[in-house]
C-alpha cells in the first residue's frame, strides 16, 4: 500500500516535472523558428562573410587566410570612394525628393475630395511592381542619345541632344529619376498608413480655430508624421546604400563612363560575382555595412533629438 502510494506520488511528481519543463520550454519552442531561420539565413552568412573577408577566396581553389590584406588593399582602391561618392550623390538627389513627393501624394490621395482615390493609389504604386529589368530598359530607351524620346523632344524644341547615359554629368540624374519614379509609390503607401493614424478631430479643431489647409499640413500633418518620415528616411537610406538593380541595368556592373554610375551595391557585385573575388567583395560589403549602420544611427539620433 505504501509502495503503491509512493509509486503514484512519484508518478505525479514526474508528470508535474514534465509539465513544468514543458511550460518552461514551450515559449522558446514556439519562437524558435524565427531564431533558427535568422541564425541560418542571417547570422551565419554575416559571420561567414566576415571570415571570408579575411581570406583570398576566389571560389574554386582553397581559400588562404590573409588577415586584413583585403581591407588594406581597399584603402587604396579608387573604386570604393568613387562608389561611395556616387551613392551619396544619388542619396542626396533621390531621398528628399522621394519623401517629399510621397508625403504630398499621400496627403492628396488621403483627401476625401479626390475622386477615384484607390485607382490613383494603384497607379502610383504600379512602378513598384514593374520588373526592374523592364524599368532599366525603358529608361535606357527613353534617354538613349540617338533615338531616345527625351532627346527627340529636346532637339524638337531647339536644344542639343544630351548623352544622358554616357556623360558623367547626366548619368546620375537619370538614375535619380528612375529611382524616384520607381520608389515614390512605395513611400506613399507608408505615408498613407501614417496619415491614417492621425486622429481626424485634430484637423477639425484646427478648422474651428481658422487654420488653412497649408497651415494644417505644416503644423499638424508634418509634426505628427515625423516618426513615419524618420522611419522612411532610414529605410530609404539603407535601400540607397544597397542599391543595385537600377544602376546595374542602366550602366552595367562597371558603372559606365568614368564609373559615374558605380554605386556601392554594384561595386560589391562586381568584385564578388563578376570577378569572383569573394574575399575582397566581402571586405567591401563589410565596410559599406558599417557605413550604413553609422548613417542610420546618426539619422535616428538626429531625428529623436529634434523630436524631443
Amino acid at each position, binding site marked *: 500500500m505504501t509502495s503503491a502510494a509512493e509509486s503514484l506520488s512519484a508518478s505525479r511528481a514526474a508528470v508535474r516535472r514534465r509539465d*513544468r519543463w514543458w*511550460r*518552461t*520550454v514551450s*515559449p*522558446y519552442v514556439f519562437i*524558435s523558428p524565427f*531564431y*533558427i531561420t535568422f*541564425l*541560418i539565413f542571417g547570422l*551565419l552568412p554575416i559571420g561567414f562573410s566576415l571570415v571570408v573577408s579575411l581570406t583570398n577566396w*576566389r*571560389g*574554386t*581553389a582553397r581559400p588562404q587566410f590573409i588577415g586584413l590584406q583585403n581591407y588594406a*588593399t581597399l584603402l*587604396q*582602391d*579608387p*573604386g570604393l570612394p568613387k562608389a561611395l561618392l556616387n551613392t551619396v550623390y544619388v542619396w542626396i538627389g533621390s531621398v528628399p525628393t522621394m519623401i517629399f513627393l510621397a508625403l504630398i501624394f499621400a496627403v492628396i490621395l488621403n483627401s476625401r475630395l479626390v475622386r477615384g482615390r484607390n485607382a490613383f493609389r494603384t497607379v502610383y504604386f504600379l512602378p513598384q511592381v514593374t520588373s526592374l529589368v523592364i524599368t532599366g530598359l525603358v529608361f535606357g530607351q527613353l534617354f*538613349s*542619345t*540617338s*533615338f531616345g524620346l527625351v532627346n527627340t523632344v529636346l532637339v524638337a524644341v531647339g536644344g542639343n541632344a544630351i*548623352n544622358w*547615359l*554616357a556623360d558623367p554629368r547626366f548619368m546620375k540624374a537619370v538614375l535619380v529619376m528612375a529611382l524616384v519614379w520607381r520608389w515614390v509609390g512605395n513611400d506613399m503607401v507608408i505615408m498613407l498608413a501614417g496619415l491614417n493614424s492621425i486622429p481626424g478631430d485634430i484637423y477639425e479643431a484646427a478648422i474651428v480655430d481658422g487654420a488653412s489647409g497649408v497651415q494644417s499640413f505644416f503644423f499638424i500633418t508634418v509634426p505628427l508624421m515625423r516618426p513615419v518620415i524618420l522611419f522612411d528616411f532610414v529605410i530609404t537610406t539603407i535601400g540607397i546604400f544597397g542599391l543595385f538593380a537600377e544602376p546595374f541595368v542602366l550602366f*552595367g556592373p*562597371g558603372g*559606365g*563612363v*568614368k*564609373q559615374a554610375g558605380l554605386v556601392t551595391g554594384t561595386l560589391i557585385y*562586381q568584385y564578388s*560575382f*563578376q*570577378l*569572383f*573575388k569573394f574575399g*575582397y567583395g566581402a571586405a567591401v560589403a563589410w565596410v559599406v555595412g558599417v557605413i550604413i549602420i553609422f548613417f542610420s544611427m546618426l539619422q535616428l539620433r538626429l531625428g529623436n533629438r529634434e523630436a524631443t
Partner: protein
Amino acid sequence: MSRPNPHQGFVAPTMSRREFVRLTALATGVAALAACAPAPAAAPTEAPAATTAPAAGGQAGSLTLWSWEGMTDGLSTQVAKFNEKYPDVKFETQFYGYDDVHTNLLNAIVAGTGAPDLVVFDTFHLSEYADGLADLTTEVSPIADQFIKPSTAVTSLKGKHYGLPTDLQPIGLYYRNDLWEKAGLKETDFETWPDLAGLSSKYDAAVGGQGHLFLVSSNDAALFEILAIEAGFRGYYFNDDDTKVIVDDPKMVEAITEMKALWDAKGTLQNPQGGYAGDESTALFKKDQLATQLVGAAWLPHSYPNSMPELAGKWRITKSPAIVKGGLRGGFQYPSMFAIPSQSKMKEQAWYLLFLATTGDGARAFRDKSKVLCPFKEVYDETLHQPEDYFGGQKIYEVFADISKDLPDIFYGTGFSEAQLIVSSHLAGIMTGETTPADGLAAAAKEMRSKLNKG
C-alpha cells in the same frame, strides 16, 4: 528595486535566454554541418581517362549541357550520331543568359555539386574555372593541330587543355564601302592608326560634318586590347609568363597616345554610349552617320545581318591599322569553348559529344548557321574562299585568315576580367584629357599590381 512583472501568474521560465540561444546555435550548427557533409557517393574529383574514341554503350542516364542561345546550333545536329553510340544517354540542353551561364558555372564549382556534364563559356574565363574542369589534355593533344592557331592556345592553361573552341575571333576593321567611296576614301589610304586619324578629318570635310568616320569609346578596353596585341603583348595586360603587368610599358604608352589622337581627330564620334557594339552604334550605322567599326570582331558577320539587314552589300572588312608602319595589323577577341566540369559523371560521353560538336559536321553546321570563323581546319579551309553577300561578295574569311596567321599565341592570364575593368576606368580620364597617357596608364598599372598581386 525590482520592476513589476507584467506577466504575473505566468510560470517564469527557468531556462535563461543565454542557454536557449546557446542550444539553438548548437542545434543549428549540427544541422548545418550535417547539410555540408559530403555525400557518401560524391562525384570523383579527377577526370577518368576518357579517350577520343570511347567505347559504345556503357552508362545510361542524362547528359546535361549549359549554354546560351545560339551556341548549340552545331551540337544539336550531332545528337542523333551521339545516340548511335550511346543510345541510353538522354541529352538535355539548359539555356541561360550569357552572364548566368558563367555565374552559375562558378557557383556549381564552388558548391561542389550541381554542375552540368558539358558547358559553353567564353575562353577569357578559363583561369577562373580551371580548378573545377576536367583536364582533357590526353584527349585534345592528339587533335590540337587540326585547329587553327591560336584557338587551342586560348582553350588551354599552363600546359593543360580544358576543352575545344567553337570559333576563332581575329579582329579587323569593318567599313561602309558606300560611305567611304562617297567621301573619296579607300582602304589602301591607311596603314597605321595615325593614318586613320588623318582620314577622320578628311571624311568630316567630305560629309560637311554630317557624320563620323568612326567612334572611339572612352570606357571600353576593346581598342586597348587590339593595341596591346599589336604592341607585342600576347597576354593583353600581362607579360608572357603572366607574372607582370605591362599596361604602363612605354610601348603601350605610345599605343594609347595614338588612341588619344584618334579620339581627338576632327570628326571622331566620342563615345556615344560606351562600347563599340550596341543599339546606339547600330542606329548610327543605319542612319549613315557612322562609317566604320574599329573593333571588327569575327562574330559580327553573325549579328550585323540580323541587326542591320538593310545594309546588306554595303560592308567591307579589312585589316586593322598598325601602331607603326610594317607592324602587326589586327587583334583578337574571345572565342567560346566547350568544356567538361570535373563533377560530371559522364565525362566519356560528354567528351564524345564535345568532339562531335566542334569538329567535322558539327563544326560545319555551327559555321553555316552562325557565320563565325570556324577554328576546325577542315571546315576553315572550306570556308576560306567563300564570298559573303552581306559584304558585297567579299571573301571576308580570307581577310580574317590573313589577320590570324600573324597573331601570336594569345592567352588570358589570371585576373584578366579585373584588368579589363581597371583599364576601362582609367582610359576615360586619358581620353578626356584629365590625365596623360603615361600618368593614366601608370595609375592603372599601380591599381592592377595592388589588386592582382603581380609585378
